């Protein structure tokens, strides 16, 4: 029983991090989009591994010790945006692609939305348990 509760907490923390990351991606994409016509501006991006997959896919459900959770999934809380590579640069030194940034915004919004839906369901379950099923 205790193990399941801890498992829940891990999943909820992971979902929270997914939402934080989606927000950061959205902020970076919005900044890129705002500078679509700024000469010399370079597209910024934040590199994230598929952290939720890593956290949930391998260790979490079958772990026998709480310290197994999150091993290798500790991510920088303050990732710095770096310049994106492999984008065509225009003559004014700017390499922002509007469609790429709009796609990133949409994708981040969808990720956030998905995590929020699951998190809300988790909260409902917890509330259900607290209220003893009433």
């Amino acid at each position, binding site marked *: 029983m205790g193990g399941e509760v801890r498992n829940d907490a891990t999943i909820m923390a992971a979902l929270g991090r997914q939402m934080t990351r989606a927000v950061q991606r*959205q*902020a970076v994409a919005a*900044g890129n989009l*705002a*500078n679509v016509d*700024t000469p010399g501006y370079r597209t910024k991006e934040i590199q994230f591994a598929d952290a939720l997959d890593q956290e949930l896919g391998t260790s979490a459900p079958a772990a026998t010790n709480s310290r197994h959770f999150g091993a290798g999934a500790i991510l920088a809380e303050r990732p710095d945006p770096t310049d994106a590579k492999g984008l065509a640069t225009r003559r004014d030194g700017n390499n922002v692609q509007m469609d790429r*940034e*709009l796609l990133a915004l*949409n994708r981040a919004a969808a990720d956030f939305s998905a995590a929020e839906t699951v998190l809300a369901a988790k909260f409902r379950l917890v509330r259900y348990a607290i209220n003893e099923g009433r």
Partner: protein
Amino acid sequence: MSTLFSAIDASASALDVQRARMEVAVSNLANAESTRGADGQPYRRREVVLESVPFDQQIGAAPTATGVKVAAVVEDQAAFRRRYEPSHPDADAEGYVAVPNVDVPEEMVDMLGAARAYQANLMAIGLIRDTIQRALELAK
């Protein structure tokens, strides 16, 4: 949450900038034939210079969005076009009139670019607003 608000600020700054670009393009178009300005010279084509502005770098717990601002509005120093029109009051001794260095198709293209960028940033604000709304739904 502050990250989201900084993202909205960045998009809003871009809306401002694109509107300024549009205004400059419109004034260039309106004055494409103005052979007399305040200084007695023909109108010179104007151009906005954009500059990016990082928001809250010292406070930022998370990366915040980069905004944009109009650094300057500069006059295009390209030579005026000359048109043969001896009956024009501003014609010189040889009958040529100096007309503004405005290229109408170029201004139209610039306006289209500004309109597209404005739309894209407006869409970004909508998406960020949706995200904030979703975040608030957790409290229900």
